[in-house]
């Protein structure tokens, strides 16, 4: 089936540093998403993105977060600066309209 790739699979950084999470969505998909999942908890929506713009963001999408997808390259989530509470697994997803989301394998972010 369609594959969404996330790079890296794990990232360990010191609090206050910047981190960029990369996502290579399904090639013909138009809508892109980031979700956050803390260990043992439900997955929570962060932001979605279409046609170069943020469509909607949740309260979890703090001012330190930003997303972009320059010219069809990776869809990225940048956190600057990071905080301890940002430690989680971040899932990227993409979709072709309303036909369902395809998720990547996630990036496990550990902020020390």
């Amino acid at each position, binding site marked *: 089936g369609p594959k969404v790739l996330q790079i890296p699979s794990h990232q360990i950084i010191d609090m206050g540093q910047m981190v960029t999470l990369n996502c290579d969505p399904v090639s013909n998909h138009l*809508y892109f*998403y980031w979700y956050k999942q803390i260990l043992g908890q*439900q*997955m929570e*929506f962060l932001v*979605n993105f*279409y046609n170069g713009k943020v*469509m*909607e963001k949740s309260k979890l999408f703090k001012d330190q977060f930003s997303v972009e997808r320059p010219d069809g390259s990776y869809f990225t989530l940048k956190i600057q600066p990071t905080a301890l509470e940002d430690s989680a697994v971040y*899932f990227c997803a993409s*979709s072709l*309209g*309303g*036909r*369902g*989301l*395809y*998720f*990547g*394998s*996630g990036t496990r972010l550990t902020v020390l």
Partner: protein
Amino acid sequence: GDSVTQTEGLVTLTEGLPVMLNCTYQSTYSPFLFWYVQHLNEAPKLLLKSFTDNKRPEHQGFHATLHKSSSSFHLQKSSAQLSDSALYYCALSEAGGNYKPTFGKGTSLVVHP
């Protein structure tokens, strides 16, 4: 606004027994409904989707029927397997909107021998 309700946080079953996970929704328009499954330490995967009333999609032995009259999309399987143990999310997205799915809180299914 849209909402999805999964009433059970945890369902525990003996292998071989039937599975039913509840999902009801509220939506202004006619939404698309989905079930996603997330196994431990894995990404969520699309399990089922339904786009028209009273069609019954099936995958891996699971099926769900969209009933607009009761705003429900319950997930069912005739016989639970140990490998079905996972977290199951029901979700909806509206046609013509920004397609952001609204997820339920998830139901954890534990199947034991």
